[in-house]
């Protein structure tokens, strides 16, 4: 239960931090709320930790006009409490009620949470629904990846070994966008058994721009494009929602584990999705 030895670097500037990522066994230490437990268990044994906590100007949550930008060192607690999130992304606030506990949220960062890409994590699903853009920086430049292309599998993302997620940019939803979020876990703050998140708009009584994602039921948080195309252009309807949820429950591929069976997870998709869609319709204006 003690981490293996590692070399510690604590750069003061972003350029210096990025230059240190040249070694494939270097890991970035941000909040450390997932990495350090893995190191304590020796599931992770990086040879070098690049501690980014002293880098300046990365702890922001800021209004950038059409989008809200969140820096690499913005802690969950700070994002959760921010006016920008409360005003534009109530779905994030709803999800945060289920995410960890205050002492963990005080240290853990949203960007680190996304890079960790835990299959049961909520924010990877939310970011895909919101189609957040992730800026991945390296010593040789920066590129922007949309959240739907970022998550590749269980603890697997599009980020390269020499890259760091420096900023998350989330476009403000169009006026009248409705949202829904539901989760079932053993206890609040624990790993989700099933998370369903959705946003949609209503145009002349018909659903438009439906975005639906699940987490906890596949190798990683996933957008459900079949569900979305079944919803778009249709009038909201209980039977429609039940059918979409039934198809989604068959499309996901959950695994059995000691706490919860795959069948039960499918049942949760079937049960939670209509509630989420109904809430999204009711909050759409």
């Amino acid at each position: 239960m003690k981490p293996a030895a590692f070399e510690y670097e604590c750069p003061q500037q972003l350029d210096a931090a990025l230059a240190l990522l040249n070694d494939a066994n270097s890991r970035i230490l941000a909040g450390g709320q997932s990495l350090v437990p893995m190191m304590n268990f020796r599931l992770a044994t990086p040879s070098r930790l690049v501690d980014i906590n002293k880098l300046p100007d990365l702890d922001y949550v800021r209004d950038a006009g059409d989008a809200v930008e969140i820096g690499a060192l913005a802690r969950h607690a700070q994002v959760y409490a921010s006016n920008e999130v409360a005003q534009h992304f109530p779905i994030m606030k709803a999800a945060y009620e289920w995410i960890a506990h205050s002492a963990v949220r005080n240290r853990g960062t949203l960007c680190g949470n996304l890079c960790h890409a835990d299959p049961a994590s909520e924010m990877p699903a939310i970011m895909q629904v919101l189609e957040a853009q992730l800026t991945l920086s390296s010593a040789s430049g920066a590129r922007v990846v949309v959240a739907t292309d970022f998550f590749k599998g269980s603890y697997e993302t599009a980020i390269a070994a020499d890259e760091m997620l420096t900023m998350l940019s989330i476009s403000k939803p169009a006026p009248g966008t409705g949202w829904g979020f539901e989760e079932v876990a053993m206890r609040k703050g624990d790993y989700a058994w099933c998370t369903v998140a959705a946003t949609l708009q209503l145009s002349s009584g018909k659903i438009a721009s439906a975005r639906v994602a699940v987490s906890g039921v596949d190798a990683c948080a996933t957008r459900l494009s079949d569900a979305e195309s079944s919803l778009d252009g249709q009038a909201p309807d209980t039977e429609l929602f039940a059918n979409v949820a039934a198809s989604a429950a068959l499309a996901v591929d959950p695994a059995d584990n000691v706490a919860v069976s795959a069948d039960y997870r499918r049942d949760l998709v079937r049960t939670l999705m209509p509630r989420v869609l109904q809430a999204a319709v009711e909050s759409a204006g």
Partner: protein
Amino acid sequence: MDKVAINLTVNGRNRQALVPPRMLLSDFIRHELELPGTHVGCEHGVCGSCNVLVDGKAVRSCLMFAVQTDGARIGTIEGMGADGSLHPIQEAFWEEHGLQCGFCTPGMLVAATELLAEKPDPSEEEIREAISGNLCRCTGYEFIIKAIRSAAQKLREGNGAAQTESA
């Protein structure tokens, strides 16, 4: 790996040390600073027993490395109360039977300290949320909730309000 020099403030007192990077803050506090009031339960961030205050915020000391606390202000259970007298939150735990075996208590007190610094008059829901990351296997939590509510009242009434900051 080379040891790193750190300079920090623990319970109001300046401390300097040379630490190997892999040393957890919890181990540094207990073994190097000889402050064993911070308890280590699960060592992977689940139980909350090792919560300490870092720059006024409750954090898991088993999920930070000591080397990261260079320049930080740390508060542990030993920094609560003064001159052998209990802090009002400790008093409330005593009076309301907010502990039995006492293992979770330092972490609970840290969680309560942070909560009451931010919300002097928390609702029961807010108290439950604040301690949701702290496991207690004895009390069933009800007496802890009662104790925190009583502590809030004591602090609001000004009993030792000056001591809150020092913790």
